[in-house]
């Protein structure tokens, strides 16, 4: 049997047959991995609750023809309890898991940065360090940036002219100067743009100093930007409690 070990975060599970599940994980060294957990739905399964979404685990896989097989699993951090007991955290966290699943290809290529970003975001959700929707929006922008879709909230996304600029277009890559702005661009408030920039940079003190009434607008622009870059919309985004 060809075995290997990795660290991973459980993104999603799907029932398979009578008692099995297919587990989708974002791993540190092998990108996104799909693996079968045999017998996991039985109450006496040795895996117990370790393969639920939001779990951060140390896992051993056996290479399979189409899907890997989970052979052992140890928990590294149990985020589910802290996340699932709070509905706003749960819905924000679910949208993060779905985004990670969509942005990281299942190719066995390492996606270390995406892994570390998700891990940090889940820890932040679980400890209640910041408002769940802010954690989500920051995660979405930074995950998109890692996937090669970095938005620009300062200099013009079209020509690079130094900002600040007034117009926003998801399709054109962020804020745009008067020359580059396409017809029908939105014009967000200055504070909203500053909030978006701070969330992308992970600058929490700046982000949390901005009046909370700009958060809803910022979330709208993040959602528009995300939807533009994903072929199909994110299913869980409409269920996020704002």
């Amino acid at each position: 049997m060809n075995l290997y070990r990795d660290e991973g975060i459980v993104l999603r599970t799907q029932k398979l047959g009578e008692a099995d599940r297919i587990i989708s994980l974002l791993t540190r060294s092998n990108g996104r991995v799909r693996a079968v957990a045999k017998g996991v739905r039985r109450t006496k399964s040795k895996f117990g609750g370790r393969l639920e979404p939001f779990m951060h685990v140390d896992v051993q896989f056996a290479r399979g023809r189409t899907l890997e097989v989970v052979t052992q699993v140890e928990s590294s951090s149990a985020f589910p309890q802290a996340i699932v007991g709070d509905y706003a955290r749960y819905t924000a966290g679910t949208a993060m898991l779905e985004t990670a699943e969509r942005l990281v290809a299942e190719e066995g290529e390492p996606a270390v940065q995406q892994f570390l970003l998700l891990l940090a975001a889940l820890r932040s959700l679980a400890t209640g360090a910041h408002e769940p929707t802010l954690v989500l929006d920051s995660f979405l922008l930074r995950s998109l940036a890692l996937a090669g879709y970095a938005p620009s909230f300062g200099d013009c996304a079209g020509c690079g002219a130094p900002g600040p600029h007034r117009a926003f277009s998801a399709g054109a890559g962020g804020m745009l100067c008067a020359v580059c702005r396409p017809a029908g661009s939105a014009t967000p408030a200055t504070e909203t743009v500053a909030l978006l920039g701070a969330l992308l940079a992970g600058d929490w003190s700046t982000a949390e100093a901005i009046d909370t009434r700009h958060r809803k607008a910022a979330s709208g622009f993040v959602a528009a930007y995300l939807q533009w870059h994903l072929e199909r919309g994110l299913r869980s985004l409409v269920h996020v409690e704002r």
Partner: protein
Amino acid sequence: MYEGIVQDLIDELGRLPGIGPKSAQRIAFHLLNADAVDVRRLAGVLVEVKAKVHFCAICGNVAEEEQCRICRDPRRDTTAICVVEEPKDVVAIERTREFRGRYHVLGGAISPIEGIGPDELRVKELMQRLANGDITEVILATDPNLEGEATATYLTRMLKPLNVRVTRLASGLPVGGDLEYADEITLGRAFEGRRSVDD
């Protein structure tokens, strides 16, 4: 690919939950080789179940009349409701003979990643039952997995202002197992839900 109707049968079977293409093919050929009488009986049951069985107007359980057997039973306690995900959970709890109240079947659990939020479940119906009934206790018996817990979290918050007693089924160690094999989550829950034994 097979010809016409044989392939149609394989495709239809393959749409059933838990049945992959290989199993669909195996079942299809089993049916082709089976006695005509047996196949006709199966087809008859399929048609009949769809025509006769629907969902109870009160609790959402499967019923052959407008209301299910449990909701019609005058001996059941009308002050307690046990909330479950699926009709099969009603059957499981009934087997314990521990509960004498009525049920409320949600039709699933909250799972945003599958596009299922509270509006896709029978949550509104539950709130209506609570608004115009004499219910004093709601027992949340959703599955002890992530979606089930999230659903219980959501319902707890909705029920809080209604001044009813809300309880959640205890989760803990499986009977007959060894403590050392329990995972941290199960063991953690068992600790949380520990009860006094000296009174």
